[in-house]
């Protein structure tokens, strides 16, 4: 969002890179995202009352909707959609490590020949 290059051309105070028009069009987008988040919440709760027997499926549905909501918040409210390369690099590295942590721990705690008492 904050393209410093064009902000400089505007000169004056607005270094962040938004003229009013820009921001107004974003506001519309924020409101849409807000609506989507509310709908998403309703869906999550609704889905949890569905009599689905499979635990895996329930978990998958819940996490799927949560991920979409998370993506909306991060993408639009936190402006990740149009962030700088440096931030992406940091977050990609973090994503790599957090997956490593989750996946490898869970994998290595699966009993091999050991028996859980």
């Amino acid at each position, binding site marked *: 969002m904050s393209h410093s290059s064009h902000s400089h051309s505007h000169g004056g105070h607005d270094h962040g890179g938004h003229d009013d028009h820009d921001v107004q069009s974003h506001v519309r987008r924020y409101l849409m995202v807000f609506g989507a988040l509310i709908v998403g919440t309703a869906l999550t709760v609704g889905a949890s009352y569905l009599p689905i027997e499979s635990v895996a499926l329930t978990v998958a549905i819940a996490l799927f909707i949560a991920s979409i909501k998370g993506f909306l918040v991060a993408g639009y409210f936190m402006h990740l959609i149009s962030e700088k390369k440096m931030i992406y690099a940091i977050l990609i590295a973090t994503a790599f490590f957090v997956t490593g942590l989750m996946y490898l721990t869970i994998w290595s705690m699966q*009993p*091999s*020949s*050991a*028996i*859980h*008492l």
Partner: protein
Amino acid sequence: MEKILGLPVLASKHGADVDKLVIYVHYLMGALFVGWLIYFLLALLKFNQRANPKADYVGIKSHASSWIEGAVVLAEAVLLVGFAVPLWGHAADNFPKRSESTVVKVIAQQFNWNVFYPGPDGEFGKRDFSLVTTDNPWGLDKTDPKGKDDLAPMLGEIHVPVDKPVLIELSSKDVIHSFKIIAMRVTQDAIPGLMIPVQFVPTKTGIYQINCAQLCGNGHASMASGRLIVQTQAEFDAWLKEKANAKPAASFE
């Protein structure tokens, strides 16, 4: 090389492989160490300020170092794929048949080892935590028929016959301990909540020290009374018979 490294007495079958790997890795280490040390001393001699008052901007041009690094990679790969992985796979996943081995259950506690034998049927009686009382510290289910012939738990003495696989089911009652018999080249953490199998084949009779290798409290250093007693089959059978006649576990108070 064993001598130089000071490897201790060995008395188990797979232990020879452990020693072999230790030795091979140390060859690799030795080669690297000696090689680089010679280079290092040479460099210091040749390029000190007095001997070489003007430094060379470029330095070494040869790519020998890349070859050395490549060789290290190769050597590590060989040790890994050729030794460590398959040997571990054999020890940690290929367990001997229960019927063909001496099955013992060892439950560690601060600061000793409790040893259980399953009796003639080779099966341990059930245990259930909800049954634990002061009279029944192990929560033995006295209604379980498999438990009827179990030997009464013993403290700190494991008897096994020589040259026959030993299968130890290892667990702990309180904190983490580690079951280590140096001469058998056996180390396995005893973890509460888990029952972990350990195997080895003793090759020499004798009395062996059992070590606790994991810090387990203020008695860790003195958790040293455990003994593994490797006997001939005949001696072992006699011992087992005597114990079995004495008192089965189900009546243990």
